[in-house]
């Protein structure tokens, strides 16, 4: 089938409902042990789409695969062949599961697919509400389907429109609500705190006390922001050297902690020591005249590494693990407070997509309505003229012209009103009414790209 003559069959006999389906696994339906076995890399995703086209003659499909979801969007949703074919692909990919695949799958059809994709793109369906990464992943999945060298393209007119709108909805929700505000992990909160104190982190100096895993994640996040120098201070010097090598920093013995502190902007502590490591005497040794510049201290050790009374210094911003967790919870709550506003945007955009989709139906319906009327006109004209042999050719032509004008006149207003009704979003019912009134049968509709 040539892409230019790609026939779109909206409704597909479902009374105007959007003919879409989405099937897959997500963090709502499957644990990570299952999801991780169904992650499709870029080339695997491309191959899967080609297989769907070859095995199930899928017209349009987009495969979205991230660590939190693997789902395929299908158009049209005429029969179950594409879904069954996709399930077979998933089974092949996942291998032996402890339960049957169906227990982990979710499936949505019709209008719910539109809403689902818009929610996914806006981050409302993510594990951490409002996370931004999903927007890029949706874009990648869409572009992969668009650029796949198959004819017609996997992202045809309907999925093209759907995904473009989803990306736009994602952007609109993030711009107009607080859904993406704040940070939702300990590492990102630490970076956010540092940014709100120092502005740019370029050139800032970090001192790491101990070598915990969360500490490493925070250092990685800070490094991405451009911190200048990392000094690792550890009771075991060899371990300090090892970690310093990983983070491109340098190592120091614990007895030089005060010296390391003197030039630090950020202190990150995660030792396994049973007592405070950064005590008031060490702090006073580092800053004998008091501290006059901001110092961010993040203590993620249990028991705590940093003497709590250091927070009394006006320029010391001390956060322990409970503080950070509380902040993460607050951020998530703050984001969730924006869900109703985000939902309103999604609802409005879903309605817009629905109206656009319904408008696809009106062109073939109008054409068939006019065709039907023309057939009736021809039949009645033939019957009339059969008993009027005395008419001249000129008279016959005039009668025929009259009949054509009459039919056009009678169909003009309904046609215009039908188009207007579509634009106003009340399309599906109107189309059904016209089909019913004119007795138009449902079935193969002409190409979208034809005239009219």
């Amino acid at each position, binding site marked *: 089938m040539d892409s230019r003559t790609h026939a779109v069959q909206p409704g597909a006999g479902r009374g105007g409902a959007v003919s879409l389906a989405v099937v897959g696994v997500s963090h709502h339906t499957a644990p990570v042990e299952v999801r991780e076995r169904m992650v499709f890399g870029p080339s695997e995703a491309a191959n899967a789409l080609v297989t769907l086209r070859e095995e199930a003659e899928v017209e349009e499909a987009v495969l979205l695969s991230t660590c939190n979801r693997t789902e395929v969007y299908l158009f049209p949703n005429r029969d179950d062949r594409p879904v069954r074919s996709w399930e077979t692909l998933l089974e092949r990919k996942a291998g032996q599961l402890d339960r049957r695949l169906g227990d982990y799958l979710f499936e949505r059809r019709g209008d719910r697919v539109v809403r689902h994709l818009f929610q996914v793109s806006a981050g409302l369906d993510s594990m951490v509400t409002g996370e931004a990464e999903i927007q890029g992943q949706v874009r990648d999945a869409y572009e992969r389907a668009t650029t796949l060298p198959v004819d017609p393209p996997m992202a045809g007119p309907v999925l093209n429109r759907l995904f473009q709108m989803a990306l736009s909805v994602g952007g609109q929700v993030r711009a107009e609500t607080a859904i993406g*505000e704040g940070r939702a992990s300990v590492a990102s909160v630490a970076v956010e*705190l540092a940014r709100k*104190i*120092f*502005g740019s982190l370029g050139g800032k100096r970090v001192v790491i006390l101990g070598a915990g895993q969360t500490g490493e994640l925070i250092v990685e996040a800070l490094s991405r922001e451009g911190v200048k120098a990392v000094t690792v201070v550890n009771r075991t010097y060899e371990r300090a050297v090892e970690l310093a090598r990983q983070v491109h920093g340098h190592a120091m013995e614990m007895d030089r902690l005060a010296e390391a502190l003197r030039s630090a902007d950020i202190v990150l502590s995660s030792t396994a020591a049973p007592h405070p490591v950064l005590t008031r005497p060490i702090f006073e040794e580092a800053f004998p005249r008091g501290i006059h510049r901001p110092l961010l201290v993040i203590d993620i050790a249990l028991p705590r590494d940093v003497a709590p009374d250091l*927070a009394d210094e006006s320029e010391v911003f001390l956060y322990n693990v409970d503080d950070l967790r509380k902040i993460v919870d*607050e951020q998530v709550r703050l984001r969730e407070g924006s869900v109703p506003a985000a939902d309103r945007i999604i609802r409005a955009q879903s309605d817009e997509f629905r109206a656009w989709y319904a408008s696809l139906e009106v062109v073939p319906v109008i054409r068939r309505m006019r065709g039907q009327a023309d057939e009736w006109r021809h039949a009645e004209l033939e019957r009339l003229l059969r008993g009027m042999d005395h008419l001249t050719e000129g008279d016959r032509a005039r009668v025929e012209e009259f009949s054509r004008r009459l039919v056009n006149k009678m169909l003009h207003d309904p046609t215009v009103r039908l188009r207007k009704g579509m634009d106003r979003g009340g399309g599906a019912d109107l189309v059904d009414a016209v089909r019913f009134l004119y007795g138009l049968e449902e079935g193969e509709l002409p190409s979208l790209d034809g005239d009219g």
Partner: protein
Amino acid sequence: MTHLLPLLFYIAAFILWVRCLMGGSQRRGPLAAGILTAVGVVSHGAALVQFWLQYGELPLVGFGAALSSLAFVGALALTLMLPLREMSRVAIALLPFIIVVQAVAVLLGVEPTPLNLDFEGAGFVLHVSLAFLGYQGLALAFAAGVLYLIQHHELKEKRLGRFFHFIPPLATLDRLARIGLWAGFACLTLALAFGWAWTMEHRGSLEMGDPKVVWAVLSWLVFLGVLGARFGGGRNDYRGALAAVIGFGVVICSYLVLRLTVGGEGLFL
């Protein structure tokens, strides 16, 4: 009416900033607020030019006229900061000052002074303009200082709420306060120098008892005090922010006291 229009734009811009703070659009909100401020500045400038053309004198002497010019200088400085995205958020603390000054000007009427004064010449214009820039520099340091103290409080209380997200980083606010203080101090120092030169030339003495002179010298000393608190005994950003807020309060209070007790009728002071 002409001086009311910019006031309405400034109020609308302030409302938009408050909406951004309360969780409204974080991209379009500041842009719209910036556009409203800029439109306000343009209409404000047009109103001041109209005053000049109508009365044949610059709006620097009469009480309402001088206040309107002072508000204009602040709004202009704010507009120039609009491209500096984070810094422009200081508008939420600076706009109320501009709005109050302009509202008083509108209420009192932006008219030339009925007194027959000899305030004229380039030296006088420079003196007043630089003084207004100096006071707006202190107002900017005050606005940045207020936001600094709020952000500092949020960070110490470990509350990452609306204020935390809206207010710029401490380092940005500190930089802004320093710019305001140094620029304001330089302008006010030059204003004093021009003022004294003008007074010596036209009056033959320094007129130390004139409330304008008293207030200008007091303001200059406040600047010195704020700079001293910030940089004396090792740089301290928090102390600097606190000093800017207190210093601005002292300057405003002393103005009000002088204005209500010994200020000249129909004059700025």
